[in-house]
């Protein structure tokens, strides 16, 4: 079978063909919405028209069969129209109220999980991990699965003071939104790369390897036509490994997961915030990472208990102060928490007013 005529630079399909008629008609003329259930909301247009969205969890890493299942459901209840959210959930877009309940029932029957709308945990923005990336210090999909299993009730039913956005990145490149998430995990190394002097001369370009190191820890080793690592300067970022595969940095024992919290993206109330380090390292204990889920549990429960309505994790912490946060969560405070990077001085406490 000969291949069809290839085309280039056509860009993506125009979105309009994928909008259900009710959306085409009321495009840009929505008036308000109501959250009916944790997985169902209705948007009402100026015209009075309504569109129901039924939100269903997805593991993001899905098979073509999963997509076809979605298509089946969409065909049955919403003329084949659906979308994904920016957090990888599926949203069925229903224009006929009578089909909402049957759709929900059908999804339940299929073992699907609905939820994530409102002041809840939603799906997790994450990355490739051991499934596909050479750079990963931990897996992403596995961590996401165990976290969502653990906190499933906060997706399907229970409410929190506000939305809690999780993110997982498998290395410090932090593909995704770890740096601005309520609670996020990032895979970290803790030992310098070990130069493979046999391979470096042929595999790597020495000058660009040296240049790749943000801390200047790499210097030439002319005798070996290789490089040396100054272990005191290395902060295990793995950037050199990205440039030179003969600088392996993975270490099953010392790699692990750091937890950062208190970030947000939205501009509501307070400016977007960066996440801050709270657990510098927890062990990689696949497939269940019990230390990680446990740690998150402590944080989430302290937040659920301490935060006022509409406070995001970071807003709650800002109100009570980091010293109090460490107290109520009982997280040990270590040297790693104290910034020693470029902007360290902005993080030191410059006031005599703090809590005991």
């Amino acid at each position: 079978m000969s291949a069809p005529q290839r085309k280039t630079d056509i860009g993506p399909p125009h979105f309009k063909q994928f909008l259900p008629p009710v959306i085409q008609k009321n495009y840009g003329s929505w008036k308000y919405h109501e959250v009916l259930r944790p997985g169902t909301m209705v948007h009402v247009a100026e015209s009075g028209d309504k569109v129901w969205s039924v939100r269903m969890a997805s593991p993001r890493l899905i098979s073509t069969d999963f997509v076809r299942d979605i298509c089946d459901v969409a065909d049955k209840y919403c003329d084949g129209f659906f979308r994904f959210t920016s957090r990888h959930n599926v949203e069925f877009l229903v224009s006929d109220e009578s089909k909402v309940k049957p759709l929900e029932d059908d999804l339940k029957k299929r073992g699907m999980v609905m939820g994530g709308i409102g002041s809840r945990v939603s799906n997790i923005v994450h990355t490739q991990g051991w499934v596909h990336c050479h750079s990963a210090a931990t897996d992403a999909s596995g961590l996401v699965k165990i976290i969502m299993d653990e906190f499933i009730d906060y997706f399907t039913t229970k409410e929190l003071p506000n939305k809690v956005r999780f993110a997982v990145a498998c290395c410090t490149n932090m593909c995704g939104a770890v740096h601005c998430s309520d609670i996020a995990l990032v895979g970290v190394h803790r030992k310098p790369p070990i130069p493979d002097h046999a391979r470096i001369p042929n595999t790597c370009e020495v000058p660009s390897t040296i240049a790749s190191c943000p801390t200047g820890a790499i210097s030439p080793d002319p005798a070996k036509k290789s490089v040396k690592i100054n272990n005191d300067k290395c902060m295990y970022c793995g950037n050199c490994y990205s440039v030179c595969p003969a600088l392996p940095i993975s270490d099953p024992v010392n790699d692990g997961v750091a937890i950062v919290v208190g970030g947000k993206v939205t501009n509501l109330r307070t400016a977007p915030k960066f996440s801050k380090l709270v657990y510098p390292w927890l062990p990689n204990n696949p497939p269940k990472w019990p230390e990680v889920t446990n740690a998150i549990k402590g944080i989430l429960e302290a937040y659920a208990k301490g935060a006022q309505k509409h406070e995001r994790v970071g807003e709650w912490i800002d109100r009570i102060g980091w010293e109090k946060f460490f107290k109520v969560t009982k997280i040990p405070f270590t040297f790693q928490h104290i910034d020693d990077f470029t902007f360290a001085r902005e993080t030191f406490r410059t006031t005599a007013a703090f809590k005991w």
Partner: protein
Amino acid sequence: MPKKYDTPLLDQLEKGSYPSFVTEIKKAAAKNEQANDLLGALEQCYKDKKTHWKHGGIVGVRGYGGGVIGRYSDIPDQFPGVAHFHTVRINQPSGFFYNSKALRELMGLWDQYGSGLTNFHGSTGDLVLLGTKTEHLEPLFAEVSSRGWDLGGSGSAMRTPSCCVGPGRCEWSNIDTLDITYNITQEFQDEMHRPAFPYKFKFKTSGCAVDCIASIARADCSIIGTWKGDIRIDQDAVKWYAKNGMDINAEIINRCPTRCMSYDGKEIKIANEDCSRCMHCIAKMTKALRPGKEKGATILIGSKAPFVVGALLSWVIVPFMKMEPPYTELKELTRKIWEWWDEHGKNRERTGELIERKGMRNFLEFIGVNPQPAMIKEPRRDPFYFWQPDELK
């Protein structure tokens, strides 16, 4: 496809009530050799607690410099099905809208030419086809492109823009996020497919300051819809919220960051000149409050992940820009920014990093934007600043 590997570790991740990616891999593995070997390879990673992927070499399709991420196993003998396992980034439609017909077709092709595994979506926004062999890339591309799909970005190029659902289903969208995204994607096809920049450049567009696409945290150019004019208040709806048990003072008035709201037990008043358009009150009282009527966007530049000197959030550069097709002002601004970045940017230096290195003045003067207080949280602290000769006597 018969079961090839025992996966006692991964199997544990099929329990629990959240849908399981392991189940998905197994579903694909049932009919696909590559997926089958991925399962084994991944179990091996779980066992060894380390990745078994090597660096991607440069692979791709003819005429394109990006859109495919090359990937090779470091234990190909053990898992020959994933010896190569490249991902193909398909540019998603604006707002992640689909219909069953289009996706069924695409999934069929992917079963034919790839692993049968996907990401809906990658965190940049692409529809990611996860894992295929080098020799399948060309035929796959011919098939998908002939059906109206194109590749997304990778490498030192413009990356696949993405946006929130916006006017497609949201009452707060001040701009047509879907159309803007489609429009700039089309405009900059060349910049997307043929990497020629110092590094990657990302666009993300949100209809309002709620920023449901997280544009301010992860786009070199963040476009965020906003308005001028007074917030529209429906006082009857205010009463409805009060009656339905909302503690308006605690939830709304006292949480307004600029303290520009008041509530006398009956009506809400807003001192609009002090409102910072943070969206809190509007989001929590959607029936009662609506944005003002003059619509546009704030353009912010520079956000990125933490390498090399810490993460950046985007910075306000153009406080208000009208956003009407064909978005000429935005496109001109973009070209100016790229021109400046092309000229001064070092290899692997993002736009935000370059602005930091060269100074905001150099950047603003080049792109022709005047200094404005909206660009800063606060003025500089130190007394060390430059003067240009024409500012002196």
